[in-house]
């Protein structure tokens, strides 16, 4: 083993030594890059010396300088998003400064845009054989885009961002090219400035009914320069064992050479609820022989003859009562102010550049108990020790204070209390018996109490640090080291004030919970890249490296009840103390190598391989190997390619690769959890079986193949980027049920599943009008997705694993062979008819339903159901398109929008289902004979034991964003002492077109933290927000 290690060192030493012999006299290249049409200097242009690691970047005046360029004739290449790359041959004399002036023409092509690779190096998109979705945030209006998740929404083809609701501070479910895993997280990996970042989608330890916090949204878009989405294993193999769900790679803003540039903004706005909450119904009636009356004499009881409606207690009124607490004066829903202010400064010299930013956000939801305060700080410093040695330090700090309301699947939820409540406001009206307080679900309990007396919060302090070192010992070799950490400290806490919540004796006594959680992720990454020109037309680039990642989570949890009024601490609880601790550590070690051959800078063939081992693998599992191969060919630059205007450029590309997803902590081991039990009056330690391990458990392996092209049309005024992909996950972890008769854990993981996702993605960008006073750009992206569970596999006894049934209500969703993961399943209504013309669709005498008695004995069944559960629909959209137009008028007015459509998916409208079919029944079709028969049929089908009638097709089109920017003329800005001034008026969630009848087709009752669970159940729908923002530069 030691011999092998010595061999490795010797190899590395050889790599370092090669260039030392190649040193020669050097000079510099300096110049200015200008727009070919306007002659204006272009900032942020990267100028490379082709075949060398030497590069420079233009400042605000378009100027750049590259030092330490070997004397002789070299080729420089200037690239920037929005312009065609251009090359120029420059002769550099020893000790001289050569002229590198270049003019660039505008273009929509992005072939020469630089992206960051898994190895920490950069490459041009033309070199990549896989599709990379990129987002330059300079082109995204910050006011309308909002937080990080929303910034991604509908902007990158193949990336589905589903908002979990309208609660301020909560997240969204992000899926890239579908869901790969049945059992493990399907969240993508997040990398910021080369460092792995905790992006847990379920970041709250205290239940509030469903909504949760996504750590994705700790990121402040104001600090981000670019977002790159590497969508699948074809491109992410070198990220290793956790990258199968794709990688979101974020590069934060860097300083630029030049004097200090200050930028500041302030935005204010208001968010409001736009959902139409349904009205509660009830009807007075006499149950059985009486004499007692009920306000809940429903149609089902009437059909069975067990309840007879009576006239209203109020003379002249029908006995059908209605009330809507959420539109009444007692509604706790109001508008929520939002504001955000930020300032940044950037600049620097050739030797060092800096970017420093501070940002404060206050965002209030539509409940008084929903607030988010967040402060972000960032300091990024890049320094050039000499031409060969560069260092960068990127540091970010987030402090947030979030208060969350009670909602969703929650006895104490505001919406639940209201929408499942009575049809009568008991405070001013009768009959409510002795209850004169009830204004919602619970007797004697005002729904506003749930806002006023639950105080549920999370405080976060988070530091992210990334350092990167780059050493170029010669023009043949670059050594790179990236290391960093992500330290997250959370305090989740809740106080229920004593004396108010009468539903529960414990809560009436007051309670306090305080959970402190620290999550740290450490990344160390080293690599060496050697670039050599093998011939005049062929270059070779070789990279080898290693990576170590450690993810450590520790938490302590404490709670108690019996809170002293006026206090707000665990110190003040008097009983039912509970304490717990949680510790988990994942360590990953990987090594990788990549070889690329480039032919005439047009054809690129790349192969790579990574080996990983992880602490979560079973004890019988060693290193897993993930290979990748890709090719990219800019065929339009070949001499044989016909020069024409219609097809002005074309690149073909293809890639295939593998990546993985590691098992969860303890998934591979058998273990027992400590519990307490009272034995002979004494608290005694005991154990309960919690995990039935599998020593052969390993990572899931996802193989993806993709192919596509980028075509420039009409002199590149229109660019089409098309990708076909097909990925299969094998060895998918399936929780194979263990027979209850074993008396063990309920399941154990085995690597037996197979999942497939395939589809196409297209991105069309067009510069349709480009005149002095009118410009119109259009971006359209679309994606299709065909997700299917190919095989759940067999258990260790060789028997097929039965479908995995889950979902809200226990059995509404399934993982079943041949169907999309998590699809909606249940028995469906196959027909209904009001056979006795009584205006009621009833289940009397239906198969499997209680028989009618008395007069009801002769009734015919009026609803038919399928005999078994059938597949109804999938949870992820099968297709999605977005239109993002940009209209510029007279240079000073810019209008942008984000219109998004999602189709081919279903939502579980459990809010209405529960209102119609559960014990809380209070919907119109439960009481009102004039309700449409179709509505009555689906209500009664719930009573018959199926929820399928409430699985609704949920195609929708939403105007997510509209932003109008007014840019002040330069003369006005100068008169005000500013370098630039603009004002944005922005709106979010402005319109929704859908046939879905629930509150919103996009909400997730279980939040984004739920891997597949999907339901619209008493969840606050997305809000509409209007904002005004002022941006200044000075």
């Amino acid at each position: 083993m030691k011999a092998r290690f010595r061999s490795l060192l010797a190899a590395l030493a050889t790599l370092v030594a090669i260039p030392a012999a190649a040193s020669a006299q050097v000079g510099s290249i300096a110049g200015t890059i200008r727009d070919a049409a306007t002659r204006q200097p272009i900032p942020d242009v990267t100028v490379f010396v082709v075949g060398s690691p030497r590069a420079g970047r233009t400042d605000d005046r378009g100027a750049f300088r590259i030092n330490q360029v070997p004397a002789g004739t070299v080729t420089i290449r200037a690239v920037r998003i929005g312009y065609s790359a251009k090359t120029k041959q420059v002769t550099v004399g020893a000790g001289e400064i050569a002229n590198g002036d270049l003019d660039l023409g505008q273009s929509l092509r992005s072939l020469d845009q630089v992206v960051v690779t898994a190895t920490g190096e950069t490459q041009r998109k033309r070199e990549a054989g896989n599709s990379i979705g990129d987002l330059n945030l300079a082109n995204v209006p910050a006011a309308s885009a909002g937080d990080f998740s929303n910034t991604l929404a509908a902007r990158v083809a193949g990336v589905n961002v589903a908002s979990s609701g309208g609660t301020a501070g909560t997240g969204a479910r992000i899926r890239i090219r579908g869901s790969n895993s049945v059992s493990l997280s399907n969240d993508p990996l997040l990398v910021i400035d080369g460092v792995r970042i905790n992006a847990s989608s379920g970041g709250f330890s205290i239940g509030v009914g469903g909504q949760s916090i996504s750590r994705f949204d700790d990121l402040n878009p104001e600090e981000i320069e670019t977002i790159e989405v590497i969508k699948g294993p074809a491109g992410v193999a070198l990220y290793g064992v956790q990258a199968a769900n794709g990688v979101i790679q974020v590069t934060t803003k860097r300083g630029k050479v030049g004097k200090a540039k200050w930028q500041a903004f302030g935005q204010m706005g208001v968010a409001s609820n736009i959902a139409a909450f349904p009205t509660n119904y009830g009807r007075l009636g006499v149950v059985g022989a009486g004499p007692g009356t009920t306000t809940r004499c429903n149609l089902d009881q009437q059909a069975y003859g067990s309840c007879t409606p009576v006239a209203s207690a109020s003379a002249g009124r029908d006995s059908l009562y209605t009330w809507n607490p959420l539109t009444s004066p007692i509604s706790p829903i109001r508008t929520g102010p939002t504001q955000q202010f930020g300032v940044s400064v950037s600049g620097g010299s050739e030797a060092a550049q800096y970017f420093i930013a501070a940002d404060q956000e206050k965002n209030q939801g539509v409940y008084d108990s929903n607030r988010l305060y967040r402060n972000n700080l960032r300091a990024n410093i890049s320094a050039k020790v000499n031409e060969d040695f560069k260092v960068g330090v990127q540091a970010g700090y987030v402090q947030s204070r979030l208060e969350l309301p009670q909602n969703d699947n929650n006895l104490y939820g505001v919406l639940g209390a209201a929408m499942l409540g009575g049809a009568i406001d008991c405070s001013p009206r009768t009959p409510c018996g002795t209850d004169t307080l009830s204004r919602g679900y619970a007797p004697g309990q005002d729904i506003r109490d749930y806002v006023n007396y639950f105080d549920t919060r999370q405080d976060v302090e988070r530091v992210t640090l990334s350092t990167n070192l780059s050493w170029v010992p010669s023009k043949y070799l670059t050594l790179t080291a990236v290391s960093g950490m992500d330290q997250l400290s959370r305090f989740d806490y809740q106080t229920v004030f004593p004396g108010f919540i009468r539903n529960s004796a414990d809560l009436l006594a007051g309670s306090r919970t305080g959970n402190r959680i620290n999550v740290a992720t450490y990344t160390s990454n080293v690599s060496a890249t050697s670039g050599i020109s093998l011939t005049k037309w062929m270059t070779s680039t070789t990279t080898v490296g290693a990576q170590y990642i450690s993810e450590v989570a520790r938490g302590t949890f404490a709670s108690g009840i019996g809170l002293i009024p006026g206090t707000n601490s665990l110190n003040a609880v008097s009983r039912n103390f509970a304490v717990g601790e949680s510790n988990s550590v994942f360590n990953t070690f990987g090594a990788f190598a990549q070889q690329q051959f480039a032919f005439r800078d047009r054809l690129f063939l790349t192969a790579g391989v990574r080996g990983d081992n992880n602490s979560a693998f079973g004890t019988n599992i060693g290193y897993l190997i993930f290979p990748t191969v890709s090719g990219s060919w800019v065929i339009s630059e070949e001499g044989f390619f016909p020069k024409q205007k219609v097809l002005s450029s074309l690149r073909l590309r293809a890639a295939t690769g593998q990546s993985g997803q590691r098992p969860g902590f303890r998934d591979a081991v058998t273990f027992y959890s400590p519990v307490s039990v009272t034995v002979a009056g004494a608290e005694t330690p005991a154990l309960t079986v919690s995990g039935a391990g599998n020593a052969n458990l390993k990572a899931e392996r996802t193989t993806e193949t993709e192919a596509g092209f980028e075509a420039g049309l009409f002199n590149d005024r229109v660019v089409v980027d098309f990708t076909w992909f097909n990925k299969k996950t094998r060895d998918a972890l399936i929780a194979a049920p263990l027979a209850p008769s074993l008396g063990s854990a309920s399941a154990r993981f085995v690597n037996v599943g197979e999942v497939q996702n395939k589809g196409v993605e297209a991105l069309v960008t067009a510069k349709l009008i480009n005149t002095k006073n009118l410009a119109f750009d259009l971006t359209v992206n679309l994606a299709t997705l065909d997700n299917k569970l190919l095989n759940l596999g067999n258990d260790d006894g060789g028997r097929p694993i039965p479908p995995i049934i889950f979902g809200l209500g226990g059995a509404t969703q399934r993982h079943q062979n041949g169907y999309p993961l998590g699809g909606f399943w249940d028995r469906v209504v196959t027909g209904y008819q009001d056979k006795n013309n009584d205006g009621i669709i009833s289940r009397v005498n239906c198969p499997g339903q209680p028989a009618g008695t008395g007069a009801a004995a002769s009734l015919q069944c009026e609803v038919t159901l399928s005999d078994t559960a059938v597949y109804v629909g999938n949870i992820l959209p099968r297709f999605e398109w977005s239109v993002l137009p940009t209209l510029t008028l007279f240079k000073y007015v810019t209008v942008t929008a984000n219109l998004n459509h999602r189709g081919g998916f279903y939502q579980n409208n459990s809010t209405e289902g529960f209102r119609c079919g559960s014990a809380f029944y209070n919907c119109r079709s439960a009481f009102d004979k004039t309700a449409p028969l179709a509505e009555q049929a689906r209500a009664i089908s719930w009573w018959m034991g199926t929820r399928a009638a409430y699985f609704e097709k949920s195609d929708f089109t939403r105007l997510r964003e509209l932003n109008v920017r007014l840019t002040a003329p330069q003369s006005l800005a100068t008169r005000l002492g500013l370098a630039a001034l603009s004002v944005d008026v922005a709106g979010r969630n402005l319109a929704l077109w859908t046939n879905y009848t629930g509150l919103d087709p996009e909400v997730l009752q279980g939040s984004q933290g739920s891997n597949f669970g999907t339901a619209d159940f008493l969840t606050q729908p997305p809000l509409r927000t209007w904002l005004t923002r002022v941006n200044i530069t000075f």
Partner: protein
Amino acid sequence: MIRFLSAAAARAPKRALSGLVVPVALLLGACDTIKDDLLTVPDVDVARPSALVGLAALPTLRASAISEFTLAYSGSSGTEGAVTMSGLFTDELQFAESFPTRVQWDQRVLDPVNTSTGGVFRQMLRARAVAKLANERYVQYAANDPNRTEVLNLLGLSYLLVADVFCSGVPFSTLDDAGNTIFGQPLTRAQMLDSAKAAFDSAIAVGTRSSATTQTQLARLGRARVQWSLGDLTGAVGFLNTPTPIAATFAYNVLHSANSSRQWNGIWNFAANQRRWSVANGKGGVGLAYITGGDPRVRATRRSGSSGIGFDNVTPLFIPNIHPDRASPAVVGNGVEAELIRAEAEAVAGNANYLTRLNTLRANTALYACPTLLAGCTAPTALAALTDPGTAEGRIRQVYAERAFWLYLTAHRIGDMRRLIRPVAQGGYGYAANTVWPNGAYPLGGSYGTEVNFSIPLPDERNNPNFTGQCLDRNP
């Protein structure tokens, strides 16, 4: 011809690809030496199987067996338990909430894919598995340890509980230390009772039958219960009376605590705390009137205000105040049951002493004294004496009504009601089901179902190759 690559260049990528493996292998090989440091992580929060081996592990195993049985029997903050599941299924409790799976229990219209039933079923079998494991470890390290008696009793009670609550055909399997599955064959009800019998016999042997410890008395009571279930009242009484009669004051409880939510009394939690289920009163026309008369053996109490209405915001909520607190103990077996079996045997034999026996119990206020954790409780007055109904069936129904009150919410009622309608030839009384089980119109619409025991929950047991997917029979 235009060639994109020379032949040599075309081969180069292939060579390079295979060459890539070398540096990666070198790096990985180098790191093999430090693999343990890099990839071995601590796991301090849980115990591994090695913690359950050796003499020192026996107290933990015994405590674990008690813990699992307690959870299976009377539940916790999140587990329903056999007592409440069967209570809702019979005439003891009434549904007052929203769970679609548990309304099936109340209505007795069961879906085989009922996750709530599956949870309780799994816990009942986990109680049996852990008791079995604990017994095996005792046999291995300390076969004569007196604490083994309790472990064996819990094993016997687990079999008995499954036999009472579920249909015939429940399999009992084993996951061994190596993680291998050893699937059991479905057992008939008689075979389950045989398993219980074996466990109780072993407990009696270990504890020595002449001993008067709680555990040996419990073993004899358990053994008597097996004979009672088989219709052998004489045999049952033999175990109760020999060598010394089990006293009416004997009791074996599982203990609950406010110490952790897992230790909460699930009966209190679901009825009083969560207001999910109310004490029933004349359920389905033939159910007993547990509320009317304020019987101190039930202590049905309606609280004021919102606490007096069920979770569903409609049903008047009467809580069983014999479980007034999360820390209230739950009776598993007691001397009253022994006395009731004796009374039943006498009633069947036409011996008028059965009534004396019943009335002696009713007169003993100490047997239904205030629960220790019930605040503001006033001492009960003695229950009025019963009179002879005058018919054989009347006497049996009278005995069973007394059993229902004395053994209220102890998971006995389902076995009682099954036995009342079980054919005489099978050791029952053969009464018509609609004179025993709730029937007619169901309050939430429709009618009560006809099931008299729980089916084995699917689909979880489906991966047991010995399991056919259904009960062997659904007979009472």
